[in-house]
C-alpha cells in the first residue's frame, strides 16, 4: 500500500512556481501526481481508456483551476476532487458499461498476462479474477472507496473529506466492497472455508 501523505511533500513550492508561470514547476507537479491521477481515474471509471481520458482532462483542468487551490486541504485531496469532476463529466458523455464487459476482460488480462508463467502460476488467474471483480462487480462508488481505503491506505476520515460524504456512508460502501472482494478471494480457496457452517 502506498503512503498517501508523502506525495504531498514539497508541493507548495511547486504550486507557487506553477502559479508564477514556471512551466517546469507545473510539469514537476504533474509528474509527481500523474500515476496517482490515473489510478484514481481507473478506480472511478473502471475502464482503462476512460481513465486515460480522465487523466488527460484532469491535467488541463489542473492548470486552469490551480489558482483556486487555497491550501486549506491537502493538495491530493483537492486534486482528487478535480479528477472526480473530470470523471463525472466523462461519465455523462459515455455509456461505458456497454464497452466495459468486453474490454476489461481482454485488457487487464493482457496487461497482467505473462505467458512464461501462465501455466505454472495459478495465482495469475486468481489475480485476474480479482481484478475483474474489482472492475465489474463493484459499483463505481464501492470501487472508488475500496481502492482509496484498503488498497491505497487513505483513512475513512480522509476519504469522507475527499468524497464529501458522511464517514458512515463511506464505511457502508467499504464494507459492501470488502465483502464482494473477499468472497471472491475465498471462492478461489474453497478448502479454507470447509467446515464452516453457512
Amino acid at each position, binding site marked *: 500500500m502506498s503512503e498517501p501523505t508523502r506525495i504531498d511533500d514539497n508541493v507548495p513550492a511547486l504550486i507557487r512556481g506553477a502559479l508564477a508561470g514556471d512551466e517546469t514547476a507545473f510539469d514537476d507537479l504533474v509528474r509527481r501526481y500523474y500515476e496517482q491521477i490515473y489510478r484514481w481515474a481507473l478506480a472511478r471509471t473502471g475502464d482503462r481508456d476512460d481513465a486515460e481520458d480522465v487523466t488527460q482532462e484532469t491535467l488541463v483542468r489542473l492548470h486552469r483551476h490551480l489558482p483556486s487551490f487555497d491550501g486549506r486541504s491537502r493538495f491530493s485531496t483537492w486534486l482528487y476532487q478535480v479528477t472526480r469532476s473530470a470523471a463525472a463529466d466523462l461519465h455523462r458523455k459515455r455509456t461505458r458499461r456497454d464497452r466495459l464487459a468486453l474490454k476489461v476482460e481482454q485488457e487487464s488480462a493482457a496487461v497482467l498476462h505473462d505467458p512464461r508463467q501462465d501455466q505454472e502460476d495459478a495465482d495469475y488467474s*486468481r489475480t485476474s479474477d480479482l481484478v475483474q471483480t474489482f472492475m465489474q462487480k463493484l459499483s463505481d462508488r464501492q470501487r472508488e472507496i475500496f481502492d482509496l481505503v484498503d488498497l491505497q491506505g487513505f483513512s475513512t476520515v480522509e476519504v469522507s473529506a475527499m468524497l464529501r460524504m458522511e464517514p458512515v456512508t463511506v464505511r457502508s460502501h467499504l464494507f459492501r466492497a470488502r465483502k464482494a472482494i473477499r468472497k471472491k478471494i475465498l471462492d478461489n480457496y474453497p478448502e479454507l472455508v470447509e467446515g464452516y457452517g453457512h
Partner: protein
Amino acid sequence: MAIDCNAALERLLEANPGELAGRDDSELAVHVRECGRCQAVAARLLAGQEQLAGALSELRPRTDVGEALSDARARRHKALKWQRVSRWGPVAAAAVVAVVMVLQSLPAARMIESENVPTPARLEPLVEAAAGQNVLVFETSDQSAKVIWFY
C-alpha cells in the same frame, strides 16, 4: 474465545486489515490470534487484497507523462485561441462591415441599381449576441431592412 468461527468468518469479510492481522483488541482480532483456522482465512484475505493492489498498480497509464503534458498544453493553447477569437470576433466583424461600406461608396464598386441592396446606416450593431454566438444586427438606410451578420 468470545465468538465462534462462523460468526468470525462473517465478520472477517468486512473487517479492517488490522483485525485481519490480529493486531487489534477487538473480539474478532482476539479470535483470529487464537484460532488457527480463522487465522489462515484472514491471512488469505490479506494476501488476496495485496495481490489485487499489486495487479492494479501494474495498470499504469499507457500515455507517457511527457506526451500527456504536451497534449494538455496543446489543448490549453487551443482553448486560449478560441477565447481570443470570441473576444475579438465582433470587432473584426464590424471592421469588415466598415470596409464593405467604404468599398460600396467608391464609384467603381457601386452596385447596379436593380440589385438595390440596402447599406448599413450605422456602424454600431443594434444587437450583439453573447460572446461566442457570433451574430451582429445592423440598421440600414431602409427602415424596413436590417443586416444580420453571421460570422
